[in-house]
C-alpha cells in the first residue's frame, strides 16, 4: 500500500464502518458514536503532541479531561447567590491564603540560605499558614455546602454561555499542566508516567470531595447546551420543524435528535480541524524539527542550544490544554459533570489505545484512532452478544454452556477490545498511520 493511498483507504474503511452502523442501527446511534469519537480524537491529538512529539509519557489524561469538565460547570452554571452570601468570600479568602502560604514557602526556600534554620522557618510558616487557611476555609465551606444540599450546596459558576467553557477548559488544564510540568517534568519515562497518573487521581479526588466547588459526587446536572445546538423538546414543539420533518418522512423525535447531534458534530469537527491544522503547521516547521530533535536525543539537543526543559513544558502544557478543551466539550455534550465516572481505564488507557493504534507522531492517526477505537468501544458490546449467539446457535436451548456463554457476553467487550488491539498492533506495529 503506498503511503498516499493508505490513509485514504483507512479513513474510507472507518467511514464504511459508520455507514454500516447507520444502516443497521440508524443515524441516531451512529451520530452519537461520531460525536464521542470526535472528542476522543481531540484527546488523542493532545496526547499525541506530548508523546509523539516530545516523548512525554503522560498517563494522567483523565485528570485534564476532568478539569475541562470542571470548567464547563464553572463557566456555564449560574452562580448560587445564597451560597455566595453564606460563605463565598470565606472560601475565596481561604484559597488565597492557602496559595499564598505555598508561594511564600517556595519563596522562602529560594531566598533563605540553606541550613537547619531555613527548614525550621519554612515549617513554622507552613503550619501557621495552613492553620489560618483552615480557620477561614472550613467554616466557609460548611456554610456553602449547607445551602440546599440536595439541589445546590455549591457556589455555582459564572452563568456564561457554555461555549466559553471550551477555551476555559483548555486554560484550566494548561494551568494545572504548568504546575505539574514545573515540578515533575524532570522525571524520566515511566517515572513521569506514574507521577502524572498520581496527579490525575488527586484531581479526581478533589472533584469528588470538594462539594462547594462542584457538588462533588452529587453531580452537577443541567449544563446548558452551546449555541447553536437546539433542544429536542423545543424542536418537537416547533410547527415549522414538525412540517419539515414530516416532509422528510421522519418522526419528530428522530429528526430532532438527529438535528441536535448534527449540530454538535459540526461544532466538534470545527474544533478538531482547527486544532489539527494548527498542530500540523507547527509540526512541519522548524519548531517541529526542534521538538523531534529533543525527542530523539535531549542531551545533544541541549548542546545545540535548545532549551529542553522549556520546550518540554511548552508541549506538555499545550497537549494538556487540548485534552482540557476536549474534556469541556465532553461535559457539554453530556450535559452533566459526574466525577465518579472518571476512570483511568476509560479516560486514560482508552485514549492511549487511540493514539497508538492510530499511529503515534501522526495527527491524522489520532483522528483515525479516535474514530475507530470509540466505535469499537461502543459496538463490541452488541457484537459480542451477536458473536456468542452465533457460537451457541448450534447448541440446544437451555443447555448450560449456552446459557453461560450468552450471559458472559457482556464481558466480551473487554475481550474483543483486547483482541482487536492486539491484531492492529500485530499487523501494523507502528500504528495504522505511522509517523513519516
Amino acid at each position, binding site marked *: 500500500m503506498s503511503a498516499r493511498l493508505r490513509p485514504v483507504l483507512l479513513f474510507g474503511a472507518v467511514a464504511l464502518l459508520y455507514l454500516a452502523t447507520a444502516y443497521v*442501527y440508524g443515524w*441516531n446511534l451512529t451520530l452519537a458514536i461520531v460525536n464521542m469519537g470526535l472528542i476522543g480524537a481531540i484527546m488523542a491529538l493532545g496526547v499525541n503532541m506530548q508523546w509523539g512529539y516530545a516523548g512525554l509519557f503522560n498517563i494522567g489524561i483523565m485528570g485534564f479531561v476532568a478539569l475541562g469538565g470542571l470548567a464547563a460547570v464553572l463557566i456555564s452554571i449560574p452562580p448560587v447567590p445564597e451560597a455566595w452570601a453564606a460563605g463565598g468570600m470565606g472560601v475565596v479568602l481561604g484559597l488565597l491564603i492557602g496559595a499564598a502560604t505555598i508561594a511564600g514557602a517556595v519563596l522562602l526556600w529560594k531566598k533563605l540560605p540553606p541550613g537547619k534554620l531555613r527548614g525550621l522557618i519554612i515549617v513554622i510558616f507552613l503550619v501557621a499558614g495552613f492553620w489560618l487557611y483552615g480557620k477561614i476555609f472550613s467554616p466557609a465551606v460548611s456554610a456553602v455546602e449547607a445551602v440546599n444540599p440536595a439541589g445546590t450546596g455549591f457556589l455555582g459558576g459564572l452563568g456564561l454561555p457554555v461555549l466559553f467553557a471550551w477555551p476555559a477548559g483548555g486554560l484550566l488544564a494548561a494551568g494545572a499542566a504548568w504546575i505539574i510540568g514545573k515540578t515533575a517534568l524532570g522525571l524520566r519515562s515511566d517515572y513521569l508516567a506514574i507521577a502524572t497518573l498520581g496527579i490525575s487521581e488527586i484531581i479526581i479526588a478533589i472533584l469528588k470531595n470538594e462539594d462547594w466547588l462542584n457538588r462533588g459526587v452529587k453531580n452537577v*446536572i*443541567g449544563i446548558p447546551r452551546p449555541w447553536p445546538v437546539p433542544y429536542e423538546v423545543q424542536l418537537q414543539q416547533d410547527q415549522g420543524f414538525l412540517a419539515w420533518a414530516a416532509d422528510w418522512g421522519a418522526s419528530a423525535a428522530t429528526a430532532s435528535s438527529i438535528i441536535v447531534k448534527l449540530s454538535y458534530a459540526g461544532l466538534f469537527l470545527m474544533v478538531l480541524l482547527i486544532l489539527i491544522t494548527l498542530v500540523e503547521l507547527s509540526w512541519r516547521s522548524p519548531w517541529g524539527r526542534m521538538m523531534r530533535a529533543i525527542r530523539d536525543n535531549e542531551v545533544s539537543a541541549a548542546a545545540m542550544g535548545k532549551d529542553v526543559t522549556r520546550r518540554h513544558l511548552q508541549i506538555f502544557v499545550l497537549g494538556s490544554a487540548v485534552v482540557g478543551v476536549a474534556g469541556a466539550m465532553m461535559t457539554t455534550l453530556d450535559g452533566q459533570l459526574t466525577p465518579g465516572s472518571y476512570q483511568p481505564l476509560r479516560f486514560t488507557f482508552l485514549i492511549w489505545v487511540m493514539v497508538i493504534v492510530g499511529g503515534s507522531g501522526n495527527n491524522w492517526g489520532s483522528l483515525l484512532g479516535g474514530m475507530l477505537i470509540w466505535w469499537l468501544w461502543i459496538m463490541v458490546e452488541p457484537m459480542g452478544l451477536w458473536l456468542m449467539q452465533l457460537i451457541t446457535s448450534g447448541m440446544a436451548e437451555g443447555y448450560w454452556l449456552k446459557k453461560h456463554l450468552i450471559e458472559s457476553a457482556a464481558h466480551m467487550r473487554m475481550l474483543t477490545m483486547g483482541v482487536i488491539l492486539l491484531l492492529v498492533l500485530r499487523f501494523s506495529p507502528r500504528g495504522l498511520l505511522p509517523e513519516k
Partner: protein
Amino acid sequence: GEVIPMGISIGYTGPLESMAPGITAAAEMAFKEASDSGLLLDGSTITTYKADSTCIDAAAATAAMERIVTSDKVRGIVGGMCSGETTATLQNVAMPNGVVMISPSATSPALSSLEANDLFYRTSPSDARQGVVMAEVLQERGFKTVAVTYTNNDYGKGLADAFQAAFEAIGGKVTINAPHEDGKADYTAEVGALASAGGEVLVLAGYVDQGGSGIIRGSLDSGAFETFLFPDGMVGTPLETNFGTQIDGSFGTNPASEGEGRDKFMELAKAAGFDGNSAFAAEGYDAAALMLLAMAKAKSSDPAVYKKEILGVANGEGEKIYPGELAKALEILNGGGTVNYEGATSVTFVNGRESAGNYRETEMKDGKLTVVKYR
C-alpha cells in the same frame, strides 16, 4: 396486534451485577404475563431489549440506551439502575426521544425534583425516606452512637446525609460520616478511621458487590465493629455467602412491602425460577407492569400518549391489581374501566413520580437474611 419493543437498562456488569438478574427476571415475567394474556392492545406481544447500564459509567449507559432507543425503538424502559446513570440516560436519551423510563431502584433524593416531562417514574422510594427509616430502626433497637461510611457517589452520599440528619434529629450521634471508594484493594485506612471514631453500629451505605464487603471484612477481622446496618445497596445474597454467621445480629433495610401483593409475587417468582427476595426484583416487576397497563388505558403504545396514564393506573380508583392479575387488569382497562395497581410493592406514587416508601427490615440470623418486619 403489534410487537411492542420494550427495554431493560440495568447494570449487568459493574458494582451491582449481582442484583441485575433478579430485576431483569421480574420485569420479563411481567412482560410475558401480559403478552401471554393476549389482551394487551389487541393481542400485541412484547419483545425485550437489554442495555448494560454498568451502574457507574454514565457515558457507557448513555450509549447503550441510545442503542435500544434509537435503533431498537423501544417504547418504554425499565431502568436505569443506579441514580447517577439514571439521571444521565434520562436527560440524554429518554427525554430527547420521548421514551418513558420507570426505574425500579434509583433512589437518590435528587431524582425527586428533576424536570422530566412526565417521562420518569420510579417504583422505589427516595432515600430521603430510607434515611428516616434507618434512624427509626436504630432507635427501636436502642443504639445511640453509630459510625457511617458510604460509597462515594450520589446514592451513597445522599443516603448517608439523609440518614445523619434523621438520626441526629431523634437524638442519635454520628461519630464519623466518611466515604469509601469502591473497588479498591485495601480498606485498612477507612476501617482504622471508623474504628477510631467508634460507635455501636457501623452504618454501611455501600454496594454489596463492591467496597461494602471489603469494609465488613476489615471491620470483622480487626474487631472494629461487629454489628452493621445495611441499607438497600447492601442487602444481597453475598452477605450470606461471604460472611454468614459472622455478622449475625446485623440488620438491614430495603424498599419492599408486605401483604397480598408481595406473597403473590414471591409465588410467581418461585414458579419462574428466580429469587423474588432479591433486592429491587419486585420493583422491577411493578415498573414493567405499570407501563403495560398505562398503554392499555391509553389504547396506544406510543410513549407520548401513554405516559399521561401511568399515574392514573397506579393511584387511580378501581379494582386493586396484584401480581399475576395483569390479564384481569387489561380486561378491565380494555373495557374502559379503571384499576388501582398495587403490584408487588403496594405502588402508590407520591410527588407525582415515586413510590411512597414501604421498607422491610431484615436481620442476619444463623447466617441467613431473614425478614423481621415491614414498615
